[in-house]
């Protein structure tokens, strides 16, 4: 009976994902270009694609850049998300409701829409960001170009991603905060513990499982992010100096019709992400097994 019930999903997934993944492995061992796409026939090339990619400094630079980018994004998301969650506990009810509603609204923004809004806010001519920074006397940002250097471009992408990711983190941590025993916090306060000690020794241990899950999810998502960098920096502005892993793979493999090389990069990337997913999948497996 259970096999009959899972059969449809397994069959469909095998056809639409299993078969392509088998094909991915085959492609990675072939020389496969635009002509091959038309004839549906590549030529066997052994591990040539892998050796090409692994001997290419662009691959290693992109990998390193993506790791740094992911570390920055995840740290910012987790720290800010956590701080806002702790703030939510301390404000009056009406502020809490207002802030939560705002966070849910931000959470609901489609990524492609958010990219357009970011593009407009950071626009060189009439971007409101330059106006606000100048008005606040942060410096003279009149017609400042936020997309002049790779670092600045990626910083814009980071701000967009962190902004979009905070609501999920904050609201999940806020839900977990309700599990922190009140008596424990009060007892610690009566004992004269400072706020930081209470947080570190009472609150944080209770939050740890949630923080762990959220961090691993964020790492996986940010490492593979595509839409935001591709659209915000602009498809025409992508180059070896600002590539993130997904964009690199997309342009070098798909954009340049080097499907064999792209397949090799895909496999390397999927393996990296699979390795990063172990913590998360194990945790969720325990959830699935327990019930």
């Amino acid at each position, binding site marked *: 009976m259970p096999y009959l019930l*899972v059969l449809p999903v397994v069959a469909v*997934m095998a056809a639409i994902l299993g078969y392509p993944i088998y*094909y991915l492995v085959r492609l990675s061992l072939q020389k496969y270009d635009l002509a091959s796409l038309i004839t549906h026939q590549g030529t066997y090339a052994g591990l040539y694609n892998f050796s090409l990619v692994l001997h290419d400094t662009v691959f290693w630079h992109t990998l390193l850049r993506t790791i740094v980018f992911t570390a920055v994004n995840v740290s910012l998301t987790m720290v800010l998300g956590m701080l806002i969650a702790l703030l*939510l506990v301390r404000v009056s009810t009406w502020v809490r409701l207002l802030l939560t509603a705002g966070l849910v609204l931000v959470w*609901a923004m489609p990524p*492609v829409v958010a990219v357009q809004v970011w593009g*407009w806010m950071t626009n060189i001519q009439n971007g409101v960001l330059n106006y606000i920074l100048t008005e606040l006397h942060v410096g003279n940002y009149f017609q400042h170009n936020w997309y002049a250097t790779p670092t600045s471009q990626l910083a814009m992408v980071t701000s967009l991603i962190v*902004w979009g990711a905070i609501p999920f983190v904050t609201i999940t941590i806020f839900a977990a905060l309700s599990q922190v025993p009140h008596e424990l916090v009060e007892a610690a306060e009566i004992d004269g513990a400072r706020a930081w000690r209470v947080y570190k020794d009472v609150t944080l241990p209770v939050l740890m499982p949630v923080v762990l899950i959220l961090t691993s999810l964020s790492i996986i998502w940010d490492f593979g992010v595509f*839409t935001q960098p591709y659209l915000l920096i602009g498809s025409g502005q992508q180059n070896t100096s600002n590539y993130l892993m997904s964009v690199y793979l997309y342009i070098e493999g798909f954009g340049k019709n080097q499907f064999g090389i792209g397949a090799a990069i895909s496999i390397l990337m999927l393996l990296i992400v699979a390795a990063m997913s172990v913590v998360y999948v194990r945790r969720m497996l325990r959830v699935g097994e327990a019930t």
Partner: protein
Amino acid sequence: MTRRLPRKLGWNALGLIVFAVMIFPVFWMASTAFKTNDEIYSFNPTWIPSKPTLRHFSAAINRAYFWTDVKNSVIVVLATVVIALILSFFAAVALAKYRFSGRKLFIVLVIGIQMLPQAGLIIPLYVVLAKHSLVNTLTGVTLVYLTFALPFCVWTLRGFVLGIPKELEEAAMVDGSTRLGAFVRILLPLIAPGLVATSVFAFITSWNEFIFANTLLSSGSKQTITVWLSYLWSGNRAVDWGEIMAASTLIAIPVVIFFLLVQRRIAFGLTAGAVKG
């Protein structure tokens, strides 16, 4: 108390600042959409449109392919959701109610597949679809969307099926129905809210999807609405920001409404079990 009050005011003030910063991009989008061009391109921007206009909205909906691409999005999304929901319902029941060998592997796959970066799959999916002449068709995109919609629906529905008390199911069986009969008569009505929530969330994910649609659909009349929107602004060429913000608002509205309906029910699926340890 006297010491607490000012502190509370401080937290509230900070809370309001955070609210203002977080909400600002959404506000700015909507505000720009209603402004006249003079106001949009002024060097001293106004916060609220002083002479609200619908000009940009009518420009957006009258632009080539807007309605065609909205229709494409709706077709792809509905097909994805309906197929994913029907197929995954049975698998979710199997996961929640039965122990079977291979179950562990199945769970690992269901969760693991959701973690795969979409860019990593685009090349094999494209080549395989090209082989079967499914590139630049809505059918092809629907098949691709199922690769992430199916595992998501299986896992989320599993949670909802679990929420149904075993006693109810047993009571139905005592009454002489078969196990299948019990599922249909007792489970189905109880799980309806879960089905709605899951389908709405799958709807949102598919509606927002960009990379697959952008790669697989090349002609303007075949694209989805997110791809349509991305073409309004590419790089540094002169663009009509009023129209882009109006279009952005229009495209975000259905998502926001749906999201508000189901956010409470669904958002914790990804972190299930973490909150209650």
